[in-house]
């Protein structure tokens, strides 16, 4: 380029034609740029949908989100009461918090301008500090884009037709790969532990399973539940009702994961080897326990670990209480229960079978021989319907029927059974009858969705061909000429909303009388306690209220030396509540006796 570059000098001047163009970026008067429809600006949180699980806080790689108490948001079942607060000085607007939010309540908005000289004002509670953000939501969570895994790994089960041929366990259990995959869906929020009566360490053991550490999982589980395989099979699992994932998908199969972990140790010796519990030296105190049900066994196990000399008095020939004699074997096989009881006795718990307190040994004797007494006596006496014909041959109580069936006795229900009730006992009785080749009808006074039974049990019953007749109120049992029950007469009911705000009430429809032919009827409308073993002074001293013992937070009755738990105390009447009662009583007994010393 030794000569003058004419083109190179002139061509840049072509830029002058820009003068004639309309500017793109200058607006007057000034208009703020409208952000795109998917813009990732400041957060917005739909307070009512948020459950305070804290998953946003966990994923935030800038540690910009913490969970704080917010006025107007109270903790309740399935809601921690906490809400995310974002430090906008740290946030990088990656939006991972939105993509992991299980409820979809957290989103990002089109708002992106904020100016203040107050550094604290950059701490910002979305939804509370910007209620108007609702109309500006731009980057939000859908089930498709979410990082949460909403679909549960299906549990392998026997086919409905196959099931009713025997009492083989219906649920087959997860294999290792299935368990790992299911466990890895958990976001470890801990809302489940809050509602578990026993506050089991659910996120921790699920985490262990997800990480392939089954033995760790088992140790964590045994920390506060000595009957985990029972819970792994038949727990009422309120934990799953509040699972964060369940807000938009299927809850983590917490119960089945516990089952998986416990099944990896298939005998009592192995459980002992894995759990390897620390057993304290004998402290010289004796505790007597009435009833070897879940609450009694739990109290016994943890007391024995703490060095107490524990004796259980059990009227039956086997331990387990209702879980042995009430729950059918296709749900909870006997060897599975036996394994857990063997483990409990292996650490020094003594069980006196066939020893009914009040008959074979008096309560007074138990009271005197021990430094403390725990009563886990259960609800054994069934309520009756109080209608005509209930005393007929072939009309039986479901619990009695189940007790006989579970004891291996021959029971004949014929080929047409009607079960009255809608709880788990009713479904159990119906499904056991189906396995005895009967055609089964369940009569329930409310709607199917009102049934207190576990939904999986109801589905299971339907799969097995059991006919559920909702809104049916039995009024009379008819007999044949031999005095045996022949049919059940019931009235259809309509559901009337409850003015008090309670659940709708069934009201019989006049003239809707319907008759079902039966060979047997099983009543399952609930049970009550039988405290006739408490005689003399104890009848006075140990107070009851509405059929249940009155206890304090440590399960202590009005007699300081006597503790109680299980169905005879709590209204939820399930195994896990009984276990929780037993565990609390251990603390109470320890406190009472050790403090005295």
């Amino acid at each position, binding site marked *: *380029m030794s000569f003058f*570059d004419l*083109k*190179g*000098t002139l*061509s*840049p001047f*072509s*830029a002058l034609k820009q003068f004639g163009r309309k500017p*793109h*970026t200058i607006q007057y008067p000034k208009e703020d740029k409208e*952000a*795109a*429809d*998917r*813009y*990732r600006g400041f957060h917005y949180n739909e307070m009512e949908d948020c459950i305070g699980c804290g998953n946003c806080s*966990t*994923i935030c*790689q800038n540690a910009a989100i913490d969970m704080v108490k917010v006025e107007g948001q109270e903790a309740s079942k399935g809601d921690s009461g906490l809400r995310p607060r974002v430090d906008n000085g740290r946030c*990088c*607007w*990656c*939006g*991972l918090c939105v*993509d*992991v939010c299980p409820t979809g309540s957290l989103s*990002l908005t089109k708002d992106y301008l904020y100016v203040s000289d107050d550094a604290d004002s950059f701490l910002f509670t979305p939804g509370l500090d910007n209620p108007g953000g609702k109309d500006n939501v*731009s*980057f939000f969570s859908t089930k*498709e*884009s979410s*990082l*949460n*895994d909403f679909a549960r790994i299906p549990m392998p089960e026997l086919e409905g037709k196959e099931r009713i041929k025997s009492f083989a366990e219906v649920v087959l259990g997860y294999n290792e790969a299935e368990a790992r*995959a299911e*466990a*890895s*869906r*958990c*976001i*470890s929020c801990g809302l489940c532990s809050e509602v578990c009566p026993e506050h089991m360490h659910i996120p921790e053991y699920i*985490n262990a399973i*997800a*990480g392939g550490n089954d033995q760790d999982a088992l140790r964590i589980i045994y920390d506060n539940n000595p009957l985990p395989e029972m819970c792994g099979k038949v727990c009422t699992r309120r934990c799953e009702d509040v699972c964060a994932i369940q807000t938009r998908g299927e809850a983590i199969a917490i119960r089945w994961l516990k089952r998986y972990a416990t099944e990896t140790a298939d005998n009592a010796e192995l459980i002992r080897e894995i759990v390897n519990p620390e057993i304290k030296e004998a402290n010289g105190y004796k505790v007597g326990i009435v009833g070897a049900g879940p609450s009694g066994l739990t109290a016994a196990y943890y007391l024995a670990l703490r060095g107490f000399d524990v004796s259980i008095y059990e009227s039956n020939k086997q331990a387990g209480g209702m879980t042995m004699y009430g729950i059918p074997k296709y749900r909870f096989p006997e060897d599975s229960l036996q394994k857990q009881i063997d483990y409990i006795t292996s650490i020094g718990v003594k069980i006196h079978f066939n020893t009914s307190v009040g008959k074979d040994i008096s309560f007074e004797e138990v009271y005197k021989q021990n430094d403390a007494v725990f009563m886990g006596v259960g609800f054994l006496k069934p309520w009756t319907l109080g209608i005509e014909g209930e005393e007929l041959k072939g009309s039986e109580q479901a619990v009695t029927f189940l007790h006989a069936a579970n004891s291996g006795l021959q029971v004949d229900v014929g080929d047409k059974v009607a079960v009255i009730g809608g709880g788990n006992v009713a479904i159990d009785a119906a499904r056991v009858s189906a396995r005895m080749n009967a055609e089964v009808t369940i009569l329930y006074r409310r709607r199917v969705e009102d049934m207190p039974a576990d939904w999986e049990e109801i589905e299971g019953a339907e799969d097995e061909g059991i006919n559920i007749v909702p809104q049916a109120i039995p009024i009379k049992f008819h007999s044949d000429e031999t005095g045996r029950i022949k049919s059940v007469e019931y009235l259809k009911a309509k559901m009337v909303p409850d003015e008090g705000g309670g659940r709708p009430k069934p009201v019989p429809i006049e003239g809707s009388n319907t008759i079902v032919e039966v060979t047997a009827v099983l009543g399952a409308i609930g049970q009550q306690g039988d405290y006739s073993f408490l005689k003399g002074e104890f009848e006075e001293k140990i107070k009851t209220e509405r059929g249940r013992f009155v206890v304090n937070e440590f399960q202590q009755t009005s007699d300081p030396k006597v503790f109680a738990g299980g169905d005879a105390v709590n209204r939820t009447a399930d195994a896990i509540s009984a276990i929780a009662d037993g565990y609390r009583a251990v603390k109470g007994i320890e406190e009472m006796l050790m403090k005295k010393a």
Partner: protein
Amino acid sequence: MREKATTLYIGPQHPGITGNMMIRLKVEGDTIVKAITEVGYLHRSFEKLAERRNWLQAFTLMCRFCVPEPDPVEETYSRAVELLEGRSVPDRAKFLRVLVLELARISSQLLWYGGQGASLGLYTIGQWSVGDRNYILDLFEELTGARVYHMYIWPGGVRRDMPEGFEKRVLKTMDYLEGRLDEYEALMFDNAIFKKRTQGIAIIDKEKAIEWGVVGPPLRGCGIKSDIRIDDPYEVYEHLDFEIPVYEGGDIWARALVRRDEIRQSIRIVRQVIKEMPGGSYYNKVPNPQKWTIQKGDAYARTEAVRGEIGFYVVSDGSNHPRRAHMRGAAYVHGITLLEDILKGANVADVSSIMNSLGTCPPEIER
């Protein structure tokens, strides 16, 4: 008469350099006799931070390796993780990724236009190109929700599908940009000043370029046809029709021409991608990030980023976070070894022009 050497410091804050770093120059008159680079002013330890994040969290760090071109780093990390885990990616996601990568290439080249122009005192170029780049950022905002740090390409695919009518707006922007390229040509490449300040300046020796591992436009400006998109195709590049611009000379001018032509090739790719975009899913969902573990092993993925080849080496110890996430980028070679060498004998006034032409990116050196 021999002039006495003096020491000049450029940086760490200086409008002419491409990020916070410093160069100590020993000069005699206007001529540099020795250049010593000093980095460490931007150290942000992304690689180390990644080891304390889970596999998914770590992806949000990747865009920060280099501000002008965040997407190739995201893509390379994601693909390395996918290779390591053996996770497949839906076809639509691959096309969307290429769309983003090529839009990012155009946007980055436009930003480079600005830097290269401004380093020579030609400020109009920068005003135009940064303005035009904004149209691409608008597209990014629409597709990803963010303008610069998109955090869009993640392991398993991409985060969101295209919004409705997005294809049309992309094509419209491409038509607009294509029309603008001739105007840039007149303003920049026909410009006597630009030619005079770039031709024959800072020549990279071909043999040295290969030996030292120079990559990208500086390598292609030495007459060597090397591009990962062709040499080791990833995503869907093997199905696309495009050319690799190569120029002889090894000087700033040749590197500039490579970049200029690449914009046209990228527009060509974007049009093909839009035309051939398959339907279906855009995301092969990864498991719950908290518990997403990857089996023990390691993997290496490489990409033709705007500044040249970048690679990601990821190692898993079987846990839910990377044991190591190491990035190999262009900036170390270009910004330290090559720069120190090439500055020898150069004019002080050319320092920032040379840095721009090499595409150094200090945050990436100090990753």
